[in-house]
């Protein structure tokens, strides 16, 4: 802990910011890293993160080429793209397409210089670090990030992509990227976050996103986590949704030795809708943990969740989906589904779907299944002349496809479909 204190003292400061950072650091010091005695971390031990000291990565020259970014990052030429390498913004690798008037897409550091009040009013307001040590750690150590502000009624057609790449220079270090999104009433846009790596360095990414979705607004948020398989990734997304807003989250996770993805949304305005989907693919000794928390605070809101996991090797998957329905949230319609497919003998999964309901006029369901590949399906295909490997591939792909189909960006969907094949398919079907 003392090494964190040294690193903290050496960190940068921006006007009002030191105070917030100081209180976040104090909170982190008080909370410490969560242990498995903490119900929210029951199945995931972060000892491997806690026992090492990941200091913020030192600035250095960027060794990642434009070509490498093009190859790795999912996305298309007309997307707005901000690229961060080892936590530092790389203007040279980024691409700014034309944006509608008054739309702001900037780095956190730029915004701190140009409109510090905008940031001061909002940073840390949604993502409270009171009970979340990793959010506290991010707030204390964040070096940079992205601020997106879309004014009332504005529709941004092209997705805004944020790419985080780590390479060997990040080895042993930590990056704490921050994302602040303000979607004013009736606005519409799509965010794509990618966490990628060159090679297999061991580092720690601790990301926090705060997203405010105004009334009638719609935000589509894709997160692709393909970190180095030696890396650690903790990512928290905290959303609040006003009246009739729509927030759609899609999380794809196949990287990191240990990853934890939190997606929390508060439905505070009547008629808001949240769609949380996710797919994780793990192999070897990987550990992937997903936690979702939907708070139905206002009446007549709907939430839909579909999370699926494919596990091979001796990997370990965890899913914890919480749905809370406030006494005032009448006419809530909540549905949560979670399926895990265990491909190998050593793989294991722990799942905990959870409902806490305090209102009576509601319809809430959850379903969870765990199983292996359907032997009857395999047999059927083999009896029709499809070889065993191809049949297996088809079944895995079909399992994953249900979630992938919810991706509304064609390019991204095709790329992630390919990633599924690459990871689990021994031979590509004809």
């Amino acid at each position: 802990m003392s090494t964190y204190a040294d690193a903290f003292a050496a960190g940068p400061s921006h006007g009002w910011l030191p105070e917030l950072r100081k209180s976040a650091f104090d909170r982190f010091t008080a909370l410490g890293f969560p242990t498995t005695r903490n119900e929210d971390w029951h199945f995931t031990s972060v000892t491997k993160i806690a026992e090492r000291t990941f200091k913020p990565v030192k600035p250095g020259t960027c060794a990642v080429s434009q070509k490498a970014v093009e190859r790795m990052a999912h996305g298309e030429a007309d997307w707005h793209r901000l690229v961060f390498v080892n936590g530092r913004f790389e203007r040279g690798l980024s691409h700014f397409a034309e944006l509608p008037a008054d739309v702001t897409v900037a780095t956190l550091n730029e915004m701190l210089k140009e409109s510090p009040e905008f940031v001061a009013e909002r940073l840390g307001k949604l993502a409270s670090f009171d009970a979340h040590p990793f959010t506290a750690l991010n707030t204390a150590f964040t070096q940079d990030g992205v601020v997106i502000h879309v004014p009332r009624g504005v529709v941004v057609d092209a997705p805004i992509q944020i790419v985080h790449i780590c390479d060997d220079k990040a080895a042993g270090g930590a990056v704490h990227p921050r994302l602040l999104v303000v979607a004013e009433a009736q606005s519409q846009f799509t965010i794509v976050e990618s966490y990628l790596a060159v090679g297999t360095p061991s580092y720690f990414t601790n990301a926090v996103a705060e997203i405010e979705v105004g009334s009638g607004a719609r935000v589509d948020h894709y997160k692709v986590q393909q970190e180095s398989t030696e890396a650690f990734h903790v990512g928290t997304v905290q959303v609040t949704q006003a009246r009739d807003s729509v927030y759609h989250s899609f999380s794809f996770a196949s990287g990191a030795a240990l990853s934890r993805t939190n997606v929390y949304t508060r439905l505070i305005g009547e008629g808001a809708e949240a769609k949380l989907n996710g797919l994780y693919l793990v192999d070897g000794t990987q550990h992937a943990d997903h936690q979702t928390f939907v708070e139905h605070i206002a009446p007549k809101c709907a939430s839909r969740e579909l999370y699926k996991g494919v596990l091979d090797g001796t990997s370990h998957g965890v899913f914890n989906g919480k749905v809370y329905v406030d006494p005032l949230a009448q006419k809530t319609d909540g549905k949560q589904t979670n399926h895990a497919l265990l491909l190998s003998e050593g793989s294991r999964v722990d799942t905990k779907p959870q409902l806490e309901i305090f209102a009576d006029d509601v319809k809430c369901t959850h379903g969870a299944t765990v199983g292996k590949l359907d032997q009857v399906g395999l047999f059927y295909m083999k009896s029709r002349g499809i070889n065993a490997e191809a049949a297996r591939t088809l079944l895995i792909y079909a399992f994953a496809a249900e979630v992938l189909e919810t991706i509304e960006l064609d390019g991204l969907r095709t790329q992630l479909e390919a990633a599924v094949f690459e990871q689990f398919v021994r031979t590509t079907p004809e």
Partner: protein
Amino acid sequence: MSASIDALVNKEYAYGFVSDIDADTIPKGLSEDVVRLISAKKNEPSWLLEWRLKAYRRWQTMTEPHWANLTYTPVDYQNLRYYSAPKSVKPLQSLDDVDPDLLKVYDKLGISLNEQKRIAGVAVDAIFDSVSVGTTMKEELSKYGVIFCSFSEAVHNHPELVQRFLGSVVPYSDNFFAALNSAVFSDGSFCYVPKGVKCPIELSTYFRINAAETGQFERTLIVADEGASVSYLEGCTAPKRDENQLHAAVVEIIALDDSKVKYSTVQNWYAGDKNGVGGIYNFVTKRGKAMTNAKISWTQVETGSAITWKYPSVILQGDNSTGEFYSVAVVNNKQQADTGTKMIHVGKNTKSTIISKGISAGEGQNSYRGQVKVLPKAENARNYTQCDSMLVGNKCGAHTFPYIEVANNSATLEHEASTSKIGEDQIFYCKARGLSAENAISLIVSGFCKEVFKELPMEFALEAQQLLGITLEGSVG
């Protein structure tokens, strides 16, 4: 709607009388001396006293668990009486020896021992406060070699069996309440069904807490030897008192190879008044171990108690063993229940089924908490879980906390849960056909719980449906 809700909620607890029976009690408080005193009063062999003392010492190092979704005034363990026995107890040869006052109490409760014995053919072991007062149908059972007696009798007459199985499924160190029970348990039921015997009649235990400020700590041990089968019923009531009474029981079931045990509970402890004053704190540890090809089935109807903390579990130890859990839990007024089950799959080809129906009314809070765990060696494990909650009224809550932990890829697990309001259109339909709102609700709730009720033995199923009706009376209009 609300006027008739209120009218219905205010139904009185029908079993809330106090019986003025002379009781042999010990001073309040808990210490090693008290443990020794209880053991001495029961004239126990030294191995049992040693076991109690080990449990007591372990208990002292433990803290009360607070992970459950329950809020209650903490129990002052030093302000409780750990032993209370009706004074007139002496070794009983037949029912005729039982204190007539006691028999009257049972008559009042509607479980006349005489009647049960003669007509229903159910053997009843009735536990009054801490001591077993009469076991019916003993002769009939002994013809088959079935041992069914109070725990104390078993300690004296069948020490080898008790010593072999006591604590083998729920060790004294298992949890806070199990440790407390192991230290101070006063009596309970013991049942042993020998190899290959199908117990010809349903066995039944009836529990009642009578004395004030008394904790009831009964211990039930059921052993089904190879190829045996037995069905066991348990019922509970307590008088109305303003202070909270503690009930911390332990039930252990051992189902050896190819045996079957079915354990049914209708729990109707006093639930406290509509303001949440009084009522029983029900902290119970129930667990069974199923060996090869054995089957353990738990069925529970939980309508009483202010606080319920109860997770009847099955360790599926042997290959091809089966575990079942059928539960109806109802909370009304300020009742809180945190109940569910654990199915631990250890052997190969093990199967478990969980059907849980929760009904919340008034300001009641009902939580289902369950764990299905498949260990790495448990090939081809199969689990099906369904937990449905129904909400009646807008101040209650229904919560679900399932834990699914799978470490073997040949396992197939399914979990489904739903929460919804009682169907207004269903009520309307029934009313349109001339049923009162009350009858309509009763009908809908019975339908909702049908899958569980059909698992109960006939007499119990009727009683359970009536109880449910009473508990929910007035909760909807």
